[in-house]
C-alpha cells in the first residue's frame, strides 16, 4: 500500500521534472517507446523523459538496454526492439509486451546511439524510478544518483524511502543524500547543523566537496560549523591518504616481487645473469592469452576461471622453455656469468621476434575475470580487486617457493649444487638435472608472474622489457641469492616509489629511487641481505 502511494509520488515528481508534459499525457506507451529511435540526442532525451513520466515499470529495463547498447531500431518498420546477439544473428524482442519479434542480421537493424550525457541521464532516471525498487542494488544506485544530483525536490520522496529502508549501507547513502539536500534547501538552522554533522561524519572526499561548496552560500552562523567539518574531514583524509599511498606501494611491490622472484632463483641462486627473464614473463602472459582464447572458443562458461587454468599452464610452458634454454645454451656457460648475460640478451631479442611473428606486434586482449574487476572501500581506502588478488598471488607464490626450496628434496639438491657442485655431484646428485630443474623453476615462476601482469599491463612482445631492469634492481638491492631479500627489496622499492610519487611526480620519483639504489649499493655492496661465500661473486 505505502509502496503504491510512494510510486505515485515518484510519478508525480517525474511529471514535474518532465519538460514535455504534453507528450507524457499520451498514454500510448508503444508510440512513446518508438520515439526513442528517432532524431538526434536531444530528441531521444525528450522521448526518454516522456517514458519516465509514465512511471511504467517496463521503462527501467528499456532504458537500461538503451544504455547498454542492446536497444535497436529495425530499419524496415522503424520499430524499437531489444536485440540479443546469438551467433551471427540478432534475436529481437518487443520491449513493450515482451513478444518475440523474430531475428535479424546486423545490416537490418541499427543500434540506438547514446552518448555519455544521455547515459548519465538514463542512470538518474532509472535511479529515480527505482529508489523504491525491491532490488537492493538498484536502490543503492538510485540513492547514489540522487546524492549526485541533490535536488531539493527529491526530499519528500527520499524521506519516505528512508523510512522504508532497512539495508544499512543504502540507508547511510540516503542519509547523506538527505543531509546534502537539507543543506541546500531553506531548512531551519538546527536541521542544517545536524545535516553538516551527518556529512562531516562521512569523512570522505565527496563529503568535503559538498561542504566546501556549501560554505560560500551558508548563513554566517553556520559557517564556523561547516569550517570545522571541512577541517575534520581534511585531517581524516590526510591520514587515509598516507595509508592509501602505502597500499599503492604494497601493490606495486607485489608486482615487482612477482617479476623479480623468478630472477632471484636464476640469477640469485644459479648465478646466471638472465636477460631473457623478462621474456619468460612475457611468454607467461601470452600463455594466459592462449588459454583464454581456448576457453572462449570451447568452454565460454569457464571464462571466469580462466586464470586458474592459465597459472599452471603458464608455469609448465615457461618452465619447459626454461629447461630447453638451460640445456641448449646456458649449461655451456656455467662459471662465466657475464657470458650468460650476452647469450641471454641475444635470446631475449629472438624470443621477442618469435612472439611478434606468431601473434603479431600488437597488444593481445586478456580479459579480467569478473571477480577481479571493480573496487571496494575500507574506511577511506579504496582497494581494487585485481590489485588485491595480485598481492595475494604474490604472497602465495613466495610462500610456495620458500617451501619448495626449504622443504623438498629438489630444493635441498638445488642448494647443495649451488654451494658445492663437485661435492654434490660426487654424492650422487645428478647436477645437470638439478641445474635444468632450477632454471625451469625460475622460468616457470616468471611465467606465473606473466599471468598476473597480463591483468594490469600490455600483453605485447615488449612486455618483458619493461620489467627486466626493475627486477634486477630488486634482486640486487635485496641481496643476491636470498628470497627474503627479494621480498624486502621489492617492498622497499615499491613503497618508496609510491611515497615519492605524489611529491615529485612519477618521473622524478623513479629517478630518485634509482639514485638511492646506486648510493645504497655503495653502503652495502652486496645488497640488503648479503650472504657470505656466494657462488655468484667469487
Amino acid at each position, binding site marked *: 500500500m505505502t509502496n503504491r502511494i510512494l510510486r505515485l509520488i515518484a510519478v508525480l515528481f517525474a511529471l514535474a521534472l518532465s519538460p514535455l508534459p504534453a507528450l507524457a499525457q499520451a498514454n500510448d506507451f508503444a508510440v512513446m517507446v518508438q520515439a526513442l529511435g528517432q532524431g538526434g540526442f536531444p530528441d531521444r532525451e525528450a522521448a526518454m523523459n516522456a517514458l519516465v513520466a509514465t512511471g511504467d515499470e517496463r521503462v527501467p529495463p528499456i532504458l537500461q538496454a538503451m544504455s547498454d547498447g542492446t536497444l535497436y531500431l529495425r530499419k524496415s518498420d522503424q520499430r524499437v526492439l531489444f536485440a540479443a546477439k546469438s551467433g551471427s544473428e540478432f534475436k529481437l524482442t518487443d520491449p513493450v509486451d515482451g513478444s518475440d519479434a523474430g531475428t535479424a542480421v546486423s545490416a537490418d537493424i541499427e543500434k540506438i546511439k547514446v552518448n555519455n550525457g544521455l547515459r548519465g541521464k538514463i542512470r538518474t532516471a532509472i535511479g529515480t524510478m527505482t529508489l523504491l525498487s525491491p532490488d537492493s542494488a538498484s536502490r543503492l544506485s538510485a540513492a547514489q544518483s540522487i546524492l549526485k544530483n541533490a535536488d531539493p525536490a527529491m526530499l519528500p520522496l527520499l524521506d519516505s524511502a528512508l523510512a522504508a529502508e532497512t539495508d544499512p549501507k543504502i540507508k547511510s547513502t540516503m542519509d547523506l543524500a538527505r543531509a546534502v539536500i537539507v543543506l541546500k534547501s531553506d531548512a531551519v538552522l538546527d536541521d542544517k547543523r545536524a545535516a553538516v554533522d551527518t556529512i562531516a561524519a562521512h569523512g570522505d572526499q565527496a563529503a568535503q566537496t559538498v561542504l566546501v561548496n556549501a560554505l560560500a552560500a551558508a548563513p554566517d552562523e553556520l559557517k564556523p560549523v561547516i569550517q570545522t567539518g571541512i577541517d575534520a574531514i581534511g585531517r581524516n583524509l590526510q591520514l587515509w591518504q598516507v595509508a592509501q599511498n602505502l597500499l599503492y606501494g604494497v601493490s606495486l611491490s607485489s608486482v615487482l616481487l612477482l617479476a623479480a622472484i623468478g630472477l632471484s632463483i636464476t640469477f640469485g641462486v644459479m648465478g646466471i645473469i638472465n636477460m631473457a627473464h623478462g621474456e619468460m614473463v612475457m611468454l607467461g602472459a601470452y600463455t594466459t592469452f592462449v588459454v583464454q582464447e581456448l576457453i572462449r572458443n570451447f568452454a565460454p562458461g569457464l571464462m571466469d576461471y580462466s586464470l586458474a587454468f592459465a597459472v599452471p599452464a603458464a608455469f609448465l610452458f615457461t618452465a619447459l622453455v626454461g629447461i630447453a634454454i638451460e640445456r641448449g645454451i646456458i649449461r655451456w656457460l656455467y662459471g662465466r656469468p657475464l657470458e650468460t648475460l650476452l647469450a641471454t640478451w641475444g635470446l631475449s631479442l629472438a624470443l621477442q621476434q618469435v612472439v611478434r611473428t606468431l601473434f*603479431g606486434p*600488437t597488444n593481445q586482449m586478456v580479459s579480467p575475470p569478473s571477480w577481479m574487476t571493480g573496487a571496494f572501500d575500507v574506511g577511506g581506502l579504496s582497494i581494487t580487486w585485481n590489485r588485491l588478488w595480485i598481492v595475494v598471488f604474490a604472497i602465495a607464490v613466495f610462500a610456495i617457493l620458500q617451501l619448495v626450496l626449504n622443504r623438498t628434496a629438489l630444493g635441498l639438491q638445488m642448494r647443495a649444487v649451488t654451494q658445492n657442485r663437485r661435492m654434490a655431484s660426487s654424492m650422487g646428485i645428478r647436477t645437470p638435472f638439478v641445474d635444468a630443474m632450477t632454471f625451469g623453476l625460475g622460468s616457470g615462476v616468471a611465467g606465473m608472474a606473466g599471468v598476473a601482469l597480463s591483468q594490469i599491463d600490455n600483453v605485447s612482445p615488449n612486455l618483458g622489457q619493461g620489467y627486466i631492469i626493475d627486477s634486477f634492481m630488486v634482486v640486487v638491492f635485496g641481496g643476491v641469492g636470498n628470497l627474503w631479500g627479494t621480498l624486502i627489496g621489492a617492498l622497499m622499492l615499491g613503497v618508496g616509489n*609510491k611515497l615519492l610519487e605524489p611529491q615529485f611526480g612519477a*618521473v622524478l620519483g623513479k629517478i630518485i629511487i634509482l639514485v638511492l639504489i646506486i648510493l645504497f649499493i655503495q653502503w652495502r655492496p652486496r645488497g640488503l641481505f648479503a650472504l657470505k661465500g656466494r657462488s655468484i661473486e667469487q
Partner: protein
Amino acid sequence: MTVVNRMIAGLGLGVTMTMGAMAVPAIAADTIKVGVLHSLSGTMAISETTLKDTMLFLIDEQNKKGGLLGKQLEAVVVDPASDWPLFAEKARELIAVDGVAAVFGCWTSSSRKSVLPVFKELNSILFYPVQYEGEESEKNVIYTGAAPNQQAIPAVDYLMSEEGGSVKRWVLEATDYVYPRTTNKILEQYLLDKGVAAEDIKINYTPFGFADWQTEVAAIKEFGSAGKKTAVVSTINGDANTPFYKELANQGVSAEDIPVVAFSVGEEELAGLDTTNLVGHLAAWNYFQSVDTPENAAFISEWHKYIKSDTRTTNDPMEAAYLGFNLWVAAVEKAGTTDTDAVLKAIVGLSVPNLTGGTATVLPNHHLTKPVLIGEIQADGQFEIVKQTAEVPGDAWSDVLPEDKGIEADWTDPLTGCGHFDTATQTCGAAPAS
C-alpha cells in the same frame, strides 16, 4: 683436416645452403621505387608494423590498377628498429642507394625530426601519417595526420558543449614527450581563453611505458570530486595506455562521471583491451573503423582480403597513409614525373576522397583538410561516432598560441615557399626561404 680445408669446405656448404634458403628477389626491369620506413622491431613495432602492411597493401592495389605512369611500383621496406639515429641512416639509404621516389614512414616525432635533415639535404618527399604536435612545416614533408587543431581542440570543444557534458574542470594527463607537451600547451592556452580558471586545470606527466597508474588515477578521481563536471584529456603514449585504461576500469572511473578523451588510442590499441568497463570514454580522430560510408566498407573488405584476416582493425594512421599514398599518386600523375620539386608543386591543392565521405585537400602548408570525429568506446572495441565536423584545414602554427599568431606556411611554389612566414613583419623565419 687442416684449418684451410675445413674453412673451404664450410664455406662451400654454407654458400649452397644459404643461397637455397635466401631467395634472391628478381630485380624488376623498370619500376618506380617507394620507400617504406617503419619500425618492424623494437618498441615502436607495435604501432608501425600495421602501417608497413598498409603501404604494401596500397602499393599492391595500385599495381593491380596498372601501376603509375605505366610502370609498376616497387616497395622498398627497411627496418629502422625503433632506433632514431637508424631512422636517419635508413632514410639516407632509401633515397641515395635505392633511389626511391618518395618515402612513407615514421611514427614518433623523434623519428621525423631525425630524418628531416636527410630529406632536406637530398630533396626527397616524406609522407608522415601520424597526428603530431604541429609547429612545423617543411618543404619535403607532407603531414597527412592531424595537426592539433584537427584533433585536440575540436575534442575539447565537444566536451565543453552541452552535448558533451559541459565539462568545467580538466585533467591533462600525458606522457612526458613533445607531442603531449605541445598539445597541452595549446590546450591550456585555449581553455584559459575560454574562461576556465587556472585551478580547474591539472597537468600531469608520466614517463614512457609507465605501468603503475594507481596514484594517478586516484588523483584524477580526487580532482574530479570537486563538484564540477570533470574530464580527462589523455595524450598518454602507446604502451602506457593499456595499464592506464585497466586501472581506470578497476577504480571504477566511469565515462558518465569523468570521461577520458584520448588522442593516441585507436582501434589497434583497444584490440588489446577488454573494453566492457570503458564504454563511453572518448577518442578524437579523423577516421574510425566504424565510419559508415561505402568507401570505408570497400577499404576494410579489401584490407581484410589482403591481410587474410577478418579481425584486423583499421585505424586513423592507416587512413592517413591511404590519403598520403593516393595524393602522391595523383600528384605524380599530374606532374607526369616523380621528380621531387615537380611533385611538390603539383600536390598543393590536390584533393582525393577520404574514407569518411569527404575529401582531403593538400593545403599550401603541406597539411590536409580533415574532418574531426569524436567517438565513444564500445564494448566490442570499436568506436561509436558521436560527433563529426566538416573538414578542418590543418594549421601548422597554432592560432591559439600568442607567439604563433599570424604565422603561416606556404609551399605553393616549393622553390620559393616558406614554412614559417610572419604575416605581420612579412618575413620568413630568420633564414631566407630555402
